[in-house]
């Protein structure tokens, strides 16, 4: 009895179509990667925008106390992500090291001004906001000039927009390809059993009775594939984590958990639904169509 059970089990394992599970796992893995990329696309865009900023050039001979007070007030403003005070001496020595010569001796005076470098919150990283911010700040008696690269900012914003649009379009197309691949793989697997389905019909089995074991198989295949895909995603996350820790949100357990649940649900639903429709199709086809 045990021998026969083992034989049945072995046969079932083989017939559970390892190839279907491998194909499904790979497709679900790609879906998982895309989901992570989509979820992190906003973070990536913010990361780029947070590097956009401007410099507040301070007037000569300003009171250090007033500068500190002004710096604090800028820090507290809603558009500010972070500020860095660069003193006249620090800015001078940085420029001298860049130029490789002591230009103060050459000029006979130091034209460099102390400044506050401001990094913006992503929502304010555009020329319109910067123009308003600049007009308000310039009214302060300590401020000599507000400096930012208009062209660079508009180019960065345009590129971020284009990149986001491209990523979303790419993801949508790849999602469709993934679904089509899953459906096709399962259809092929059911197609190979079309004559068994025909025999089942001929011996008087009802459609639901024929469909049930196929759908159960599909459900298990979806489940195993999702589990394999999740393991592959975990491996990939481990691999890229160190490189992208500051850039992507892949250490966020909530996001990872959400993606894993999504993969599991997509795997089961897609696999079962595709199986249901494929079996239904072959139950209803005529004998001559079976040979086409």
């Amino acid at each position: 009895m045990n021998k026969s059970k083992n034989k049945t089990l072995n046969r079932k394992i083989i017939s559970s179509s390892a190839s279907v599970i491998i194909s499904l796992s790979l497709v679900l893995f790609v879906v998982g990667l895309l989901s992570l990329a989509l979820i992190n696309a906003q973070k990536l865009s913010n990361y780029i925008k947070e590097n956009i900023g401007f410099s507040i050039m301070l007037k000569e001979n300003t009171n250090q106390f007033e500068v500190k007070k002004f710096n604090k007030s800028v820090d507290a403003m809603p558009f500010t992500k972070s500020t860095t005070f660069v003193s006249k001496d620090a800015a001078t020595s940085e420029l001298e090291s860049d130029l490789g010569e002591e230009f103060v001796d050459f000029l006979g005076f130091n034209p460099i001004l102390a400044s506050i470098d401001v990094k913006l919150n992503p929502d304010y990283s555009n020329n319109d906001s910067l123009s308003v911010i600049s007009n308000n700040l310039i009214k302060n008696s300590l401020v000599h000039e507000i400096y930012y690269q208009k062209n660079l900012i508009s180019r960065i914003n345009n590129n971020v927009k284009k990149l986001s649009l491209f990523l979303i379009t790419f993801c949508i197309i790849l999602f469709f390809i993934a679904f089509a691949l899953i459906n096709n793989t399962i259809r092929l697997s059911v197609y190979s059993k079309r004559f068994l389905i025909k025999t089942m019909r001929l011996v008087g089995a009802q459609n639901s009775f024929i469909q049930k074991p196929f759908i159960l198989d599909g459900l298990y295949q979806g489940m195993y594939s999702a589990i394999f895909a999740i393991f592959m995603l975990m491996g990939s996350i481990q691999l890229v984590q160190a490189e992208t820790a500051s850039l992507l949100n892949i250490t966020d357990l909530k996001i990872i958990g959400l993606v894993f649940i999504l993969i599991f649900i997509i795997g089961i639903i897609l696999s079962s639904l595709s199986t249901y429709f494929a079996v239904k199709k072959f139950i209803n086809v005529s004998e001559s169509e079976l040979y086409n």
Partner: protein
Amino acid sequence: MNNQIIKLEGVSIDHLDHNVLDNINLSIKKGEFTYLIGDTGSGKTSLVKSLYAEIKVSAGNINIINYNLNKITKKDIPMLRRKIGIVFQDFQLLTDRTIRENLEFVLKSTGWKNKKDIDLRIDQVLKKVHLKDSKEKMPYQLSGGEQQRAAIARAILNKPEIILADEPTGNLDPYISQKIIDLLKEINLTGTTVLIATHDYEVIKNNKSRIIKCSNKNLQEISIEEL
């Protein structure tokens, strides 16, 4: 229908848009053992297929076991097939499971639930076709004759009122063919109607019974001497 289990009136059957039988009449009584003969392409298989509602007739009335096949719905087809035992030339066993599982599938799909009853019925039919020792074998492990006997066991599981056998000896040698016919005759003796489509005239000569011939799109009853 009274005593008639099959009744065809003015039936025409098309196969792939080609008319194979035209305006035929046929009546088979309960418990009869009938041969349906004819050349290849004469319409034997199409007629058998129309009897288990696999193909629709293009004209006429067709009745089998109190089912009017002109009016049968898709939902009722499985019910009809449970009352018919079908045997094919190429056996059509479920190749992915053992003989026991093949039989179990039929019983479960036709509403049998009790494991003991299922096992008992499987043992009964396998004993009848002398395949009890091959219960756990896969179809590919059996010879052609054994596979056909397994197919007959499957056909008689639900004690059908009629067995439709389409070329049941077509793939078998004369000795095994005779064994299969003996088995079908044995089943016929229990009251089951048997209709065999065949072109194996040796089998017919050795086992005399009613003969219907398909030729020129028509059906004609002939005697053994006319073969």
